[in-house]
């Protein structure tokens, strides 16, 4: 009997670890998109996730949109926020160094958090799951239907982004802008457009993650910072700029956290991501999946 219980625990922790890990993966991918085009680490990435969840609450709870309409409406709203962030702030500071721009993104994250607090208050909000249904029981562990949605959304995003960046000319043009902006202009790539596109795209992906996770873990105005930090941990672990790496690292991070919470103490849960981040930066700064060769050719 005892052994059965242990197996059930393991399975349960795995399932919840993969679910939250998929969210970290999406946040990490958001970092990677902007990093790939501009070499900026956008520390407002976590706020995009928070805004996605809260906008979905607004569209569903207040305006009574059906669930998928609310999902897409929230994504559009946050994408607009990403647009505004690039168009009205980052673009105006375009002569600043990458480091100054990173600091600007921290400022924006604080502003977004404050605005969200004014708009939605300090209470956590919930959303109904995308599709109704009781949890699926596998070997005694409960798998929420929404967890499948989270994983499905993440996988769809990873696959389409990988195809976009490695097989489409626009994707490669975005990478070229990151590599050498002035050379990119000389071959006729409109760099400002590509940078704008990167902010819109990663805001939209962050929002998708936020909407998908809200039915499981609720959403409140100050969740962005921690999600952002853990997502950054996943991005570094997977190798900055590497989508596949970010996805696997996000899942690993989620699993590590879930096991720590289950077997050690849930109090140490948040430290796991930071410890992993430190270990990576000390011992393998190019990340688990990043190529050392490519890392050498990059400035950051």
């Amino acid at each position, binding site marked *: 009997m005892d052994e059965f219980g242990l197996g059930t625990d393991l399975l349960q922790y795995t399932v919840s670890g993969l679910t939250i890990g998929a969210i970290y993966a999406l946040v990490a991918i958001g970092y990677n998109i902007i990093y790939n085009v501009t070499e900026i680490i956008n520390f407002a990435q976590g706020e995009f996730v928070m805004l996605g969840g809260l906008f979905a609450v607004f569209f569903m709870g207040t305006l009574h949109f059906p669930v998928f309409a609310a999902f897409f409406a929230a994504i559009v709203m946050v994408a607009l926020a990403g647009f505004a962030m690039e168009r009205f702030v980052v673009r105006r500071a375009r002569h600043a160094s990458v480091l100054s721009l990173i600091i600007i993104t921290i400022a924006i994250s604080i502003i977004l958090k404050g605005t969200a607090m004014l708009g939605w208050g300090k209470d956590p909000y919930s959303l109904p799951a995308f599709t109704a249904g009781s949890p699926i029981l596998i070997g005694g562990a409960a798998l929420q239907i929404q967890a499948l949605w989270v994983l499905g959304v993440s996988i769809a995003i990873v696959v389409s982004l990988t195809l976009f960046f490695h097989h489409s000319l626009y994707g490669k043009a975005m*990478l*070229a802008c990151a*590599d050498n902006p002035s050379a990119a202009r000389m071959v*006729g790539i409109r760099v400002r457009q590509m940078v704008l596109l990167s902010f819109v795209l990663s805001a939209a992906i962050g929002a998708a993650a936020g909407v998908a996770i809200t039915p499981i873990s609720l959403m409140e105005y100050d969740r962005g910072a921690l999600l952002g930090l853990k997502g950054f941990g996943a991005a570094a672990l997977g190798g900055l700029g590497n989508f596949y790496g970010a996805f696997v690292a996000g899942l690993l991070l989620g699993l590590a956290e879930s096991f720590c919470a289950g077997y050690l103490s849930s109090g140490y849960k948040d430290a796991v991501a930071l410890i992993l981040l430190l270990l990576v930066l000390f011992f393998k700064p190019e990340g688990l999946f990043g190529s050392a060769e490519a890392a050498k050719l990059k400035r950051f």
Partner: protein
Amino acid sequence: MLTLKSIHTYYGSIHALKGVSLHVRPGETVALIGANGAGKSTLVSTICGLVKLHKGTVEFQGRNIAGFSPEDIVREGIALVPEGRQIFSTLTVEANLQMGGFIHRHNSRQMAQDMKRVYERFPILRQRSQQLAGTLSGGEQQMLAISRALMARPKLLIMDEPSMGLAPLVIKEIFKIIRELREEGRTILLIEQNARAALQISDRGYVLETGKMVLQGEGAMLLEHREVKRAYLGKGAKQIWEA
């Protein structure tokens, strides 16, 4: 084809170009030589729209392109092989070439054709097409930079110091490539410190000194010019001084 009329450009607070005029006719190879700091690179940046023109006109095929953005100037038909190559080092060789043809991205057949032609010209690039461009040797990177510019199907090819930082044998190879491009009837503006090699393969040449055009003429004539010999070729300087 390209006509610069008394252009003035500031590089920061430095008056870098003081009324420079230059023209390139279709099918010509024109060399622009000058020492470090003479304003050669500023001149290139001005033509390509990277530096703002203070006074004067830049006319290309009868259109005034002064004030155009670099992105639009490529679309007008001027491609640059930049100083220091400036390839996309974290992209593959193939992706670099595709980016060169970015302005023709809607014509995938033409792009495939141009790519094939580049690989025929430089088989080494085909071998390394899936390698990151930053891992190529200096000479290979220069071939890639030239190929990337050709992918834009330019009417005018500007080459900024293509021999810079390369080994003597590789420089020879690069000049051979430029000679071939010239024989294909391309229009080339060649900016070089290596005055002898540049003038030898050019129809005409200009000499830029501290922001002013001090000499111009046929390549062969400039090679024989006393002043050029003294200042840029370092040949027989003693005899000239003593004469």
